Structures are given as C-alpha cells and as structure tokens.
C-alpha cells in the first residue's frame, strides 16, 4: 500500500523543523516495522511549514473547507474549539489508545489542553513556558547583589515582586544610563498568548472552570491595559512598540539591550543559534510573569501545539496519520524537537531521555516554570475574546483610548457577539 501523508505546521521556523520531521521519522519506523511484519507499506510524508500563524491558520481552515486539507495539522491547541465545531478535524481518540505507550506517558494536563467537549482531539506536540527575562548585567549595574538576583525568581513566584516593581527597576536602569531610554522593558512585539499572562497577573480568569464559560474580567483587563499604559508613561517602552519587527526585538533581546523582556522558553534557542547570545545563564535571569496586584498571581502560560487529524482525509489515511502521530510522540523522537527548539517535553519519560536531561535550560525550565503554567481555554469562542483583548491592548498602548475605555469596549464587544456564553466580571 502507498500512502502520502501531508503535514502542515504553523509557527514553524528554522529551529522547529522536527514538528514535521518527527512524522517523517515515525513513517520510516513504521515502514521498517511493516517490512519486518511482512506487510507491503510505503509512506511518503510531505511537510509544509509556515513561519507565521495567520497564514497557516488561514490555509488550514480554507483547505479544510475546500476538502483539500493536509492529513495532519500542527497548530495551537486553542484551535480545537472552533475547528472541531466546524467539523474540520476528527477526534484522534477514535484512532489511538491513550492508555498505551507512548501516549499514556504524556502529562495529563497536556492531554487536557487537547480535550474539548469531553473528547481528545489531538496529541500534544510540545509544551513550553512563557517567561519574564531579566538582564543580569543591568541588574548588577544598578546595584543588585548576586543574592537579590538569584532570589528574584522566588520573590516573583510568591507575589512579592510585582509588575510595578519591575517597572520601577527598569526605570532605574534607564535613569542610571544602564539601558537606553525606552528600552527598559521589551514586551512581545505582536499578538500572542503571552498577553493573557498579564491578564492573569491582574487576577483575570480566561474561563470559568465550573461552567467552561469565557470570563471577561473588566478589572483585570483594566489593570493590564493600565500597566502597559503606565509603562509607556514611564518611558520604559514606546507607545509604538507593538508591530516592531521580530528581528529587531530578537537582536535587542540577545544583545542585552532590554532591561527586562518576556518571551518563551524556546526563544533561548534562537538567541543562541541565530543572534549570537553566548552566555545565556550568565547574562539572563528568568522568572514567571510577576503578579500585577495582590489579586493577581505570578504565572506563565503554556501553549502546546497539537497534532490534529483533518476531517477531510480518507479513513485509511487518518488511521495511518494517527499511528504516525502516536509514534512521533515517543520520548526520544519528541526530545529531538524539544532540545532543538528549546520547547519543553511532553512527558515525564521524555525528561529522562539523556539527550533531553543533559540540556540545562530545559531541565531548569521544566522544574522551575512548568509547574506553574496553565493554558488558554479550548473554547470555540475564545478567538473572539482574544481578538477583542488584543485590539483593546493596542488601543490603550498607543493611547487611542484610556485603559478604562478599552476594557469596557472589550467587554461590550464580547458581550455583543457571545451573549449569554460569556460571564462579565
């Protein structure tokens, strides 16, 4: 039998090629197994990677609508909501046993992120933590002791050191000329799950754990918008920061031009491989995203990508694709991706793969950050909320509206389109 399995993968740059290559490895393995078993099986894996998300999601959605979709899609877990509702994907639980190896080793909370409407739709492909990074040389330059720097992580975690403390710190850096004006704080330059962290820092909850309804916490939104507006006000970040080129941001981050900045665990790989950051641990301290107020909490968001099965494949292709996904989730294969792209592993077993265990950053992040992560909800309406949240952020950041107005607009917009399916707080 001949199969051609196509894999489309979003947000996939130079360091994350194993999102596709893992499937290829699995295919190779499956063919060998078939050969030994005496079956005639040939699988060609065709992969296509998108470096951005908008293109990828557009392509996957439209291709699915046109019944022209790839057999496997690699996307953020939050897409499960809308895509399953629209019937674009099939639940993978129909095709694999989650109680056999290797799927049974995957962290249950990751499986949870791939679950929607009581069904498991995809297999988590990686995990991560999103991190606040701190420039050690800059902290030292304003007189922080080694101890203070080291204990920062605990202080953040305990809620002792808040976002506003952070602003004061970077302001000091700027005032003392350690950091260029406007470069004290280097947030992510475009939309991303990261910004939900700040919502959480101010006590926001994305969805109600009881009912699964989305929660628009106007107060948290206001707090978060106010925080960025204050940061602009203080002059530690420019009001036009959003939309800066990624490249520029990476360069600044890797060169230590920012006092603090936030990104993902995987960024470390890019800074080292592409932007010439030599001594990561010597130069960069990392913590959770600090709490904004007492109501809030220090937090980090994980945003696992998941392997999904397209609903437009034939039954046979889906069977093969699902098996490939399961095989690609084996600790040793998945570790290739984890280590190369500095993402976190998906299972306990993976952390024991020597190749993975030898990576200082991954083990540190796995222990210090991963336990505190949560994910954005799988809810088919979450995109609406997200889009509105980001537009509000843009508006308040650039000064187009006040934080209060922006938060109110978000609440109104979301309420208007989702009605009873959302809880306003």
């Amino acid at each position, binding site marked *: 039998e001949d199969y051609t399995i196509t894999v489309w993968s979003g*947000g996939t*740059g*130079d*360091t994350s090629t194993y999102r596709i290559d893992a499937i290829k490895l699995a295919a190779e393995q499956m063919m060998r197994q078939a050969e030994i078993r005496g079956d005639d099986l040939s699988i060609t894996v*065709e992969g*296509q990677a998108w*470096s*951005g998300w908008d*293109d990828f999601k*557009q*392509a996957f959605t*439209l*291709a699915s*609508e*046109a*019944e*022209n979709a790839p057999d496997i899609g690699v996307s953020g877990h939050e897409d499960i909501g809308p895509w399953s509702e629209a019937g674009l994907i099939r639940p993978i639980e129909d095709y694999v046993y989650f109680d056999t190896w290797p799927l049974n080793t995957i962290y249950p909370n990751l499986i949870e992120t791939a679950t929607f409407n009581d069904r498991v739709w995809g297999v988590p492909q990686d995990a991560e933590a999103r991190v606040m990074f701190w420039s050690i040389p800059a902290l030292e330059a304003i007189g922080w002791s080694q101890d203070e720097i080291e204990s920062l992580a605990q202080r953040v975690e305990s809620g002792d050191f808040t976002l506003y403390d952070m602003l004061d710190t970077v302001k000091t850096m700027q005032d003392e000329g350690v950091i260029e004006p406007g470069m004290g704080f280097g947030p992510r330059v*475009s939309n991303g799950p990261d910004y939900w962290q700040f919502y959480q820092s101010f006590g926001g909850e994305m969805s109600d754990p009881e009912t699964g309804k989305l929660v628009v916490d106007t107060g948290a939104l206001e707090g978060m918008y106010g925080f960025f507006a204050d940061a602009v006000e203080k002059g530690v970040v420019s009001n036009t920061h959003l939309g800066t*080129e*990624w*490249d520029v941001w*990476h360069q600044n981050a890797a060169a230590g031009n920012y006092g603090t900045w936030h990104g993902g665990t995987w960024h470390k790989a*890019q800074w080292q491989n*592409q*932007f010439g950051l030599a001594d990561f641990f010597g130069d960069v301290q990392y913590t959770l995203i600090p709490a904004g107020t007492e109501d809030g909490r220090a937090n980090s968001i994980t945003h696992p990508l998941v392997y999904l099965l397209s609903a437009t494949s034939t039954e046979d292709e889906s069977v093969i694709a699902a098996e490939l996904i399961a095989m690609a989730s084996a600790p040793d294969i998945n570790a290739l991706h984890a280590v190369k792209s500095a993402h976190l592993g998906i299972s306990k077993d993976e952390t024991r793969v020597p190749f993975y265990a030898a990576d200082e950053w991954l083990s540190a992040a796995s222990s210090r950050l991963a336990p505190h992560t949560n994910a954005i909800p799988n809810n088919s309406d979450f995109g609406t909320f997200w889009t509105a949240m980001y537009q509000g952020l843009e508006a308040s950041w650039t000064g187009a509206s006040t934080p209060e107005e922006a938060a109110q607009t978000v609440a109104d917009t979301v309420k208007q389109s989702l009605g009873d399916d959302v809880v306003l707080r």
Partner: protein
Amino acid sequence: MTRNFALFPLMVVITLISLPLMVMYGFLILDTVTDAPPGALWPDEFTLRHWRFLWDMSAAGNVWKATLNTAVLALSMVAVVVPVSSLAGYAIARLNLPYRRFFLGGILVMHAFPAVTLLIGVFFVLKFAGLYNTMIGVILVKGALMLPFGIWIMKGFYDAVPWEIEMAGVQDGASRLTVFRRLILPQVKPGLVALSVFAFLDGWGEYLLPRVLAPGSDMTVMSVLLNGLIAGDDIGYDFNLFKAVGVFYTLPVIALFAIFQNRLMTIFGGGTKG
C-alpha cells in the same frame, strides 16, 4: 518645447524628487553584489555570495521551481486574458448586444473596482469548483479579475479602428466574423501585444491570490517565496539575499517593460481615457 524657458532648475527639482526612487532602485542592484558593514550607507566589499540561492536551495528555497510556477501563472494569464478580452472587447465595441450599455457600464465599474475584497466569495466558488489550492483556480480568478481591464483596453483599441474599414469589409461581402478575423484583429495587434505584456506583468507580480488561494508548497510562486524570506516571527532577515532574489525575480519584468514601454504607455492612456 521652445527654448524660451530655462531647463536647469527643472532638472534639479525633478532629480531631487526622484532621489528616493533612485536610491532604492540603485541600491537594489548594488546590494545584491556587495556587502556593507552595519550602519554604513556605502558597501565596502564586492561579493557574489548573495546569489548563492541560484544553486543552493537551502538559501532561499527552491527558486527555480518558484520561477517556473510564476512563469506558468504569468503565461496563463496571457492565455486567458488576451483571447477572452479581445473577443468580448470586439463584441462590446462593435456588435449589437442586448443591454450593451449595461455591459459597458458594468465593465467600467468593475474595471475601476479592484475585487480583492471579494476574496471570501471567490473562495467559496473555488471550493465548489474544487479548484482551491490549485494553480488553475488562481489563474481563473486572476484572469477573471483582470478581464474588465482587458476588455476595456481592447475596446479602446477597437474603437480606434475606423468604422469605415468594417463597413468596407461588410460591403465587400464578408461576414462579421470574417471581418473581425481578417480585417479588424490585424489592426489591433499593438493592443494585443500591450495587453499580453500587461497580463504577463500582472501575473508575474501577483502575490495575494496565490498566497490565499493556493498555499500549497507545490504552487509557491516567486512573490510568495520572496515574502517568505522576510516575514515570520523568527527568521533572521538578510536584505542582501532578499534583494538578490528580488532582482532575479524582477529582472524579466523590467526587461519586458523596457522593451515594450511605449506600448504600455498607450495602454495606460487608452485604457483609462474613459
């Protein structure tokens, strides 16, 4: 022009205004074969490194495949737009059609109205025709979107053919089809050439439609490939490489344009005299 006015001030003014373009296009070429130290305006080193993408497929992806795809798209545009427009243009310029005014008005409106905003509807049609993520789909859509322009242009050229020629042809006993084929078509050759070049240029430079309607890697055209070099969250951009690919991509267009410049001018003039 008469020599009653001085030329020099004009030269200065126009050169100043054109400076951004001169710089951009000048450096476009220059940067493909040189390297400049960071923060410097002027290059200090000659290199052919940026052209490595021609043989090294890891530098910028498979440019040859993309070039082929682009050429297919561009040539297909010619193949779709020119015949269809020249037929319809003739009918609309010269034949008794019911609702002819309505057609003409419609064409004019559509001509003025770039239809990229209708992409969702277009997608829907392609979805039903099973043409999403195929080159044929892109060609048909792009071709159809260009038709109003093409028909309008061709109508302009037909309008310039004296009615008397057509009358003479009919008078000589030829049917309208014969008149069209043997007497009128040869007169609008410049129009056909200009429209062909134009359709080619348009197809060659198209970005949005292939990007949205044919995202599959088999169909990657140069514009999409080129943009891939600079878009995305985490790819280090290399302007020089980008420009080299860009020059490689654009050179045929510029050459074509240089050859046919005068004819294109007439198409612009003729096509917009409405």
